[in-house]
């Protein structure tokens, strides 16, 4: 109403003093604190083999978290990422084991399946106007069922394609640095994160994702084809789930059709802990990756301290609530 604004605005530019940066920092500080705590609590924690375990364990959740970040920043939600990942893995199994096609065909199968299923979710949301929560809840069950049907409720092993382990558990980097036994899956995750970060921040899609999440109606009235960009957002999320499907099936050397449900909540938790707002318009890929690491460090550390698994789950839940609470407080201060 009046010219109140100008004084209080020493522009929150991209910098270390922005709220977004602070949130990333909060998540980062939590991560460091957890690492320090577990290092002192157990000498096994910082063993190289355990660090590799943590990295390996983060890969799948990290990639799924990245998929969810796009959707959540656009003010949507995707509950189907876990079972979509499994469905993609099963389709890879079909191509590699049932049909005996070469490895590239299996990879392509997972990625196209992911993108197509994501497109379907997007179309249901944009064209049928079904709320994302319900649309992807439906997709979650449909894909879970289809994975079981197609696989015949049995794991599909990739014994005919020995090279498939290159995707995740193998460590190609040992060819260069023999002592650095980091599995390829970890590099896949970081690559996905970096590319996704560039897409979110630098591409026209990313810009529309933020605009949709901040104020969809204003974007629509600006002449933006919001339906189209919504579909693209979910399609990209689905594509990334395809990558997660490759990671998990490579690591298990099989497509496990019963797996998958529950992964979506872990992924959403990573996104939220990383400071992305569930109401959309705000979020970072880096935050999500840090969030995914917090979850896996927590699980790993508590296990090493011989905390019962039941209690690990309790602690994870508490961490999620605290993360969102801190997020709210910081937001109110801004």
């Amino acid at each position, binding site marked *: 109403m009046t010219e109140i604004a100008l004084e209080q605005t020493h522009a929150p530019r991209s910098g270390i003093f922005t709220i977004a940066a602070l949130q990333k920092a909060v998540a980062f500080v939590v991560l460091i604190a957890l690492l320090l705590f577990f290092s002192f609590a157990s000498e096994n924690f910082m063993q190289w083999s355990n660090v590799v375990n943590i990295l390996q364990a983060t890969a799948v959740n990290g990639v799924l978290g990245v998929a969810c970040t796009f959707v959540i920043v656009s003010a949507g939600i995707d509950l189907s990422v876990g079972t979509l990942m499994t469905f993609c893995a099963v389709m890879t199994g079909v191509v590699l084991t049932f049909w005996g096609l070469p490895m590239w065909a299996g990879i392509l199968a997972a990625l196209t399946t992911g993108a197509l299923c994501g497109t379907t979710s997007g179309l249901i949301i944009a064209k049928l106007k079904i709320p994302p929560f319900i649309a992807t809840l439906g997709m979650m069950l449909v894909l879970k069922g289809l994975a079981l049907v197609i696989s015949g409720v049995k794991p599909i092993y990739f014994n005919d394609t020995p090279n498939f382990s290159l995707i995740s558990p193998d460590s190609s980097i040992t060819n260069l640095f023999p002592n650095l036994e980091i599995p390829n899956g970890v590099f896949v995750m970081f690559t996905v994160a970096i590319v996704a970060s560039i897409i979110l921040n630098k591409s*026209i899609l990313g810009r529309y994702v933020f605009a949709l999440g901040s104020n969809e109606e204003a974007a629509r009235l600006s002449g933006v084809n919001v339906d189209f960009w919504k579909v693209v957002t979910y399609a990209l999320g689905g594509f990334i789930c395809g990558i997660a499907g490759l990671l998990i099936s490579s690591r298990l050397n099989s497509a496990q059709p019963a797996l998958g449900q529950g992964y979506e909540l872990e992924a959403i938790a990573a996104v939220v802990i990383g400071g992305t707002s569930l109401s959309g318009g705000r979020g970072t890929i880096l935050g999500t990756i840090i969030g995914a690491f917090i979850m896996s460090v927590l699980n790993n550390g508590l296990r090493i301290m011989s905390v019962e698994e039941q209690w690990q789950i309790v602690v994870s839940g508490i961490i999620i609530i605290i993360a969102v609470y801190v997020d709210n407080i910081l937001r109110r201060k801004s």
Partner: protein
Amino acid sequence: MAGRNTKEAGAAKSGSQDRAAQAKPLVELRRVEKFFPGVHALSNAHLDLYAGEVHAVMGENGAGKSTLMKILTGVYQPDSGEIVVEGRPVNVPGPRAAQELGIGIIHQELYLMNHMTAAQNIYIGREPRRGFGMFVDEARLNADAKALFKRMKINIDPADEVGHLTVARQQLVEIAKALSFNSKVLIMDEPTSALNDTEVEHLFAIIADLKAHGVGIVYITHKMDEVKRIADRITVMRDGQTIDTLPAAGTPISKIISLMVGRDLADATRAGGKSGDEEVLRVSGLNCGAAVRDVGFIVRKGEILGFAGLMGAGRTEVARAIFGADTIEGGEIHVHGERRNIRSPADAVKLGIAYLSEDRKRFGLVTPMSVRDNITMASWPRYTASKLWMRDGALRKTSAEYVDLLKVKTPSVEQETRLLSGGNQQKIVIAKWLLRDCDILFFDEPTRGIDVGAKAEIYKLLQGLAEQGKAIVVISSELPEILRLSHRIIVMCEGRITGELDGKTATQEAIMTLATQRQGIAASEERAIQ
């Protein structure tokens, strides 16, 4: 007989003082003043209401009627002034307190919970309980509501879900709710806006019954015919002040209108220059729900066309329908002489049509995003490399140019738009459409929420755009604004165009007359004014 006549004449002449001798007013508001940040909403507003009286409160949009009613019902606290109920000065700290004082209000928009029953709505928050207060006594709840409806002589099943009732019946439920507090004072804010003629008659019958039972009614309306029919006295407000209180009988409508608008126009310069002849937009037979009925008009190049009317006249809906934001039921739109189908805002934008909403924060800007992104939003695809990557450098450069051009006050183009003032936000939205090469611009309340200095700047900007050959439609509820800017003025009332005036010769009175010209009563009223 003679005695009664003189008494009435006396009351008619000097209003409250004479009546005060006989009875104390039910409610009196004295010298009420209210400030909002940057706005002096009420200064020296007063109103008195007697038992068994219908007291109409009239005034233009923004005259302060609603604010005054919100003070009476405890929604706002006055900054100074007195509220006197039956001779006692009182505080009304909240809506609950108003209810306890016997002051009820029926809002213009209905505040009902659609998924609950009529009875549950009426007694929400004070349900009869049973079983140690743990359960709602549904039977008594429904019986109470039924008794209430019976008293009002209306036939609504208390167990019906409110969402299933017609709007008129929902209104009756609101009235029942207000009556259930045993209100002695009932405020009705444009109660007939959603009712048809039969329903209006029913409402008037209920009002007559309430009067007979000694309830005092404050009746807010824009509709002159209603006032003439049911009001005993009329208070006219303007610019936050009570201008006059008159007896309804014997006061000509023209007098009321001139009291409502009587603002000095001295400072407002009229639209200068001459508009072009080239027709850029022709709309005919446009229909969109009840809000837009058979609307047709043309806009020419270099012209500012004003759309005047009262709130709810359908002007915003016309703009939204043309822009493709709402689905139209019929009508033709010609852009630059060609018939076009506009199904979405994206279609409209491609044809160079832009709509600047009155609610910038909701519909105009993505406020958490930067000035740069907001100015360029409608043009992003033009600023990409290989159709994929944003060229942020180019975005920055272009938006900086527009920031200079429109003199937007912002520390940088990276500033979040939510941190800018209203006037600067409006300039950002204008820049967005200029950058997108739009040449038909609909401005909906272009200066709402913008302070006086910035207003003049926006006016200059609009006039400059028209001179450059843009076709501009300005929707405004502020008559001086319409008169100052428009080459031609179209006036709407209840979804229809009721007249067109020349910008040079139009007067506020002429606009108000057309704006209140409901179908049917139009002709006779117009004659009365002339």
